[in-house]
């Protein structure tokens, strides 16, 4: 098997507070092959964005800290690199797009200039200016915006168009990995569908790997190959989309998530929420992090790390599956 393009091993990230530390990511591991999309799914506070920022090493200075773990990009540990090396990797090899396209663009620069800026920073081949401008036009066309609009300012574009421009900037240097942090959450459904379809096509066309961070299982089904269900900074279930969306064995949290979604086909009026709330990341429960909300909670869930079930790459962290492996 070839080396995956990105491999995260036992990553721990904390935010240091004045009085207490916030344990945002607590030992997650996953790998991403070339041209593959992994979905990091979870609710607010699950540690999805922190994971992305850890990979990009864009954690807030002094507060955010990776305390343990390794992040391999093409076999090299990113955590051992110095700031300058990381800067060169950012944008050129790994790019990120953020949730809100309204604030991600500089309002006083034309969109063409903003794409150009990203190109010229990583212009190692010393391409002449005309080449760069040509590339700007190419990128705009690629994301479905007429190239003649490059002299316009962000406010002249609608929300969906802005997100397309953000994508164009992120893709400017042909990154190997694109991290998309809730790229469509701020958009309307019909526009969301357009942007998701665009991202899927671009990924195929450019052969990138993608990390799709979202809270929406529907978005995952439409775009991802692999899925990691995150909760309180841990991956509770990990596997291919087929593993997660089909099959018999699931983590109780995954099951709860699916049941809580208001579905278009169901005829019942009432919904099935997951009772209780996300734990406070500064004060996580012992044992399985999900046990206070879990309908199947047993005594052994309240202490000690939950059992790790694994079959053909499908991982579930839950004591319920202790007996199952014997089969």
């Amino acid at each position, binding site marked *: 098997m070839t080396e995956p393009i990105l491999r995260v091993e036992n990553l721990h990230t904390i935010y240091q507070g004045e009085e207490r530390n916030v344990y945002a990511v607590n030992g997650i591991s996953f790998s991403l092959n070339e041209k593959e999309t992994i979905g990091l799914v979870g609710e607010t506070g699950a540690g999805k964005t922190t994971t992305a920022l850890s990979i990009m090493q864009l954690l807030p200075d002094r507060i955010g800290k990776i305390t343990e773990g390794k992040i391999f990009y093409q076999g090299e540990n990113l955590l051992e690199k110095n700031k300058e090396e990381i800067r060169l990797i950012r944008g050129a090899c790994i790019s990120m797009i953020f949730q809100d396209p309204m604030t991600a663009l500089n309002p006083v620069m034309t969109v063409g200039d903003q794409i150009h800026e990203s190109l010229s920073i990583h212009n190692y081949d010393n391409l002449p200016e005309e080449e760069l401008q040509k590339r700007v036009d190419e990128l705009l066309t690629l994301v479905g915006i007429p190239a003649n609009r490059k002299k316009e300012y962000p406010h002249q574009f609608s929300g969906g168009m802005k997100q397309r421009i953000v994508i164009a900037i992120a893709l400017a240097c042909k990154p190997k990995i694109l991290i998309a942090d809730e790229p469509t959450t701020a958009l309307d*459904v019909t526009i969301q569908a357009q942007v998701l379809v665009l991202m899927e096509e671009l990924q195929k066309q450019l052969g990138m790997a993608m990390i799709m961070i979202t809270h929406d299982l529907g978005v995952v089904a439409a775009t991802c190959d692999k899925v990691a269900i995150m909760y309180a900074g841990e991956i509770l279930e990990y596997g291919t989309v087929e593993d997660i969306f089909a099959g018999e064995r699931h983590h109780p949290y995954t099951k709860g998530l*699916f049941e809580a979604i208001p579905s278009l086909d169901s005829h019942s009026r009432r*919904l099935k929420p997951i009772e209780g709330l996300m734990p406070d990341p500064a004060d996580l429960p012992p044992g399985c992090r999900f046990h206070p909300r879990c309908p199947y909670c047993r005594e052994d869930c309240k202490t000690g790390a939950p059992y790790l079930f694994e079959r053909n790459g499908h991982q579930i962290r839950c004591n319920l599956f202790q007996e199952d492996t014997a089969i």
Partner: protein
Amino acid sequence: MTSLIHAVELTKYFQVGKKRYLHAVDHVNLDIPEGKTLGVVGESGCGKSTLGRVVLGLLPATSGELYYQGEDLIHGNKKQRKKMQREMQIVFQDPYSSLNPRMSVYELIAEPLVMNHVYGSRRETLQRVQELMEIVGLAERFINSYPHEMDGGRRQRVGIARALALRPRFVVCDEPVSALDVSIQAQILNLLMDMQEELGLTYMFITHDLSVVKHISNEIMVMYLGQCVERAPAEELFQNPLHPYTKALLSAIPVPKLGASLKHNLLRGEVSDPINPEPGCRFAKRCDHCTEACAGKNFQLKELGDRHFVACALYQ
């Protein structure tokens, strides 16, 4: 069936420049029977929130008629209107910005009671606040908490308790679960449905999310650029959507199922602003079925079958 809210050709224009008017709500008819829920669905900028505010009297209507229990809300005398508006409340979208960060839960829930001089004594007010907290499922230990100390779900419960304080009969829910996580979203939706049953409330449920509205609504109205393009009983609308926009909205929802694709029926273009719109179908520019017949005149809602209305050239 008596309707609690009845609106005829309700219209709200905003002036955005010299002789430029944004048609936020354009000749919309409403009929909400007591104890039922009307779902209002549409994308941002379709005027659904403006409609809710006009119905509540938070924004004055440009033209049209509006009745609450048969009483005229637009031309009626001020005192009467004020009294009726007490029975009409709103739950806001964002539980983070709709609660004053400097007020405690007690102060927040008590505000409508104090402002309307409902109770003479502090003891009675406290009692009612406690009662409301119990109704919305908020533990009493939060009574002295501030909004920032609570998560989104609990904050939204405070928002609901505030809306219920004056014992309203009609509540406009303006995207009450859009800012919440799925697991919490389901809790709040269930709470809203329980309260409707227990207190006999009538809802106008505004949302951009068709899957949410399906569970709570009896009737659904789809809006596009200020106009109602389709209206039908909830089940009927999902089984048999007629307007091309409704169809596109339905197929754009990412379904959490294997092999789901969004490419089917993908809508092109984006919503524009309805500023001084030309007569004709406002969706025509994005519509695959658009013909010459779509321009030139406005389409009225036409009843096709059982309480299913649609405004589209295809069904005239």
